[in-house]
């Protein structure tokens, strides 16, 4: 893709030389980890294509949108309300970093003991190696974990970064009222940035737009309840990851096409593994593109990952935004309602997450949970204690994996996972 897009990247101030190094490794990783999987659904071809064009076609589209006067907003968290952005004719792209590649750039500035997701996105910005970052007119951050909060202050030196204060006790009256005020203020900010008024009508339409995307992803998740699962966990993760930066309408349509194919598979009992592959849930920190490490190790060791309790997973699409009426206020209230239900480990107490994990384990006939935590992510790391207790009382074994983006510990992780699978098989 390099030749074709050089001018595009130049126009975005990309460090071409460094960027070439990144592009040189990605296709090989994708071939080794993803394309090499057996029995992949045909309709994954669209998503493979999107990844092959990761810094090309979609970036070109965004630049074109910008040329037409639309604004691009970069986000890092599920709490960034997409619906409001689209209601202001803006486009939102997820900028979470999932690559080891950009971490050396970040390490030159940030402390070592910081979560790799944060280091990765910061490194992409200061290393000028992510065209999505370069497209953004504004970033929207949020007060979730301390690491991100502080790094947003540093990002603000490069791109205007607006911060939403996320209540950490969302179930309380004061939490909800803060959320509502924050949404109203974000709406004002968006209107200022874009020059477009967010009307009740427009917000209604964008709520529908995003609900449709969530519904498509939920449909995909539901299909994975079948034994054997009709799609690998790795492929399902890639689809969800793409959902954070692709064109919403096109993406939704493509996910639905994929689901049509999977429905046929389920009907005919066709799966990606044999029926006896242990069914695993992965629960924990989000996995941003191109973080495919854990699922690819687990599935190449013989597991079938059937659900991700993650922000790049069920937390994104379990609940829809459901306004009680057509007024602007009704819709903002509905947004508060929906966003307060996302059970992030930054909340306290976060019982909703435990309940959700228990329910998912039952609904998806999960035989084991791999608890995934990134190094130095205190919220998810500590919450593993409660999750572990709850799962134990349900008789579901849990394996905790704490890792980063390097491949240094891949063999150790493989041994743990294989032993975990042997243990599950031994109990059958």
């Amino acid at each position, binding site marked *: 893709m390099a030749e074709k897009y050089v001018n595009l990247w130049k126009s975005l101030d990309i460090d071409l030389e460094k960027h070439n190094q990144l592009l040189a490794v990605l296709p090989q990783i994708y071939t080794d980890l993803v394309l090499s999987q057996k029995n992949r659904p045909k309709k994954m071809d669209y998503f493979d294509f999107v990844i092959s064009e990761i810094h090309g076609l979609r970036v070109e589209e965004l630049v074109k949108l910008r040329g037409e006067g639309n604004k691009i907003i970069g986000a890092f968290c599920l709490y960034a309300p997409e619906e409001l952005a689209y209601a202001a004719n803006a486009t939102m792209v997820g900028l979470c970093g999932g690559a080891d590649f950009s971490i050396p750039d970040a390490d030159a500035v940030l402390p070592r003991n910081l979560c790799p997701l944060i280091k990765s996105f910061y490194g992409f910005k200061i290393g000028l190696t992510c065209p999505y970052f370069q497209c953004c007119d504004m970033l929207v951050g949020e007060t979730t974990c301390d690491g991100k909060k502080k790094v947003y202050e540093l990002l603000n030196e490069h791109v205007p970064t607006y911060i939403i204060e996320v209540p950490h006790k969302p179930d309380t009256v004061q939490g909800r009222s803060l959320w509502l005020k924050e949404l109203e203020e974000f709406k004002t900010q968006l209107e200022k940035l874009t020059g477009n008024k967010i009307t009740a009508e427009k917000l209604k339409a964008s709520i529908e737009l995003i609900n449709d995307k969530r519904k498509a992803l939920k449909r995909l998740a539901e299909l994975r309840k079948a034994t054997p699962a009709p799609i690998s966990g790795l492929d399902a993760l890639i689809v969800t990851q793409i959902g954070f930066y692709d064109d919403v309408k096109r993406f939704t349509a493509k996910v639905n096409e994929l689901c049509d194919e999977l429905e046929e598979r389920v009907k005919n009992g066709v799966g990606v593994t044999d029926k006896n592959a242990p069914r695993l849930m992965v629960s924990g920190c989000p996995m941003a593109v191109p973080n495919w490490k854990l699922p690819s190790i687990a599935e190449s060791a013989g597991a079938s990952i059937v659900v991700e309790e993650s922000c790049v997973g069920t937390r994104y699409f379990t609940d829809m935004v459901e306004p009680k009426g057509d007024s602007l206020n009704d819709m903002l209230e509905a947004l508060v309602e929906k966003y307060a239900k996302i059970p992030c480990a930054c909340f306290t107490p976060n019982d909703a997450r435990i309940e959700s994990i228990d329910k998912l384990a039952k609904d998806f006939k999960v035989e084991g949970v791999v608890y995934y935590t990134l190094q130095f992510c205190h919220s998810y790391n500590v919450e593993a204690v409660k999750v572990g207790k709850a799962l134990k009382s349900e008789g579901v*074994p849990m394996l905790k994996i704490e890792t980063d983006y390097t491949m240094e*510990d891949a*063999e*150790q992780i493989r*041994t*743990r996972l*294989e*032993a975990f699978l*042997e*243990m599950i098989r*031994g*109990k059958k």
Partner: protein
Amino acid sequence: MAVAGIDAGSATTKAAIVKNGELSAYAIVPTGANGRNASAKALEEALALAKLTRIDLTKIVSTGYGRRNVEFAENAVTEITTHAKGAKTLFPSAMTIIDIGGQDSKVISLDEDGRINNFVMNDKCAAGTGRFLEVMARTLEVALQDLGKLSISAEKPAKISSMCTVFAESEVVSLIAQGEKREAIIAGLHEAISKRIAGMVKQVGLRREVVFTGGVAKNVGMKASLERVFGLKINIPAEPQIIGAFGAALIAEEGTIIS
């Protein structure tokens, strides 16, 4: 009918030959730089001792850190499963297995039927493993196999606060400089390892009988120290270093019976 198990560890490679559920021979060779050669060599040595040849083997199962590189093995099984199998076979009432090898340590908890219930592994660094003791023995100018004996005669273990190989080494150096007795320092090192193992055991829950395997289980001081920390007697197989290979061979035999 005979089967073999190969445990391709980071420091040593072990081969065990099993005939009708009984261990008939074994060999232990250093892994060295070429793990593949070590596996073949260990197997040949064990076969020679059993007065058998490769043709007599119906199945070979590999285990350990290098399990996937043992080309002549039909199956690879993790060291968790093979240690559980081997220890449970030798000690039918085993519920907790502690294994300290060259570069990792693990604790496995079994249920009443001998199935694995839970496990924890430390394989990120050398802290509290055979490698750790090797470095300390060198610093103390003591032969590795003498650590146990010497530590038993210590009156009171010296206090070692770090488990990191690098930091503990400098702690040992300064203890020597302060005139602390070698015996006490060694006992202190054992105690530090025991406490770390106790932390891992707590994660899965301590239940008797406890079986201690791996090369480090040959160290009588380590056994005494673990027994003190847990307040109970610990069982050690006659050759604790080959339990993984033995378990792998047993699994190979089961596989042969099934298919």
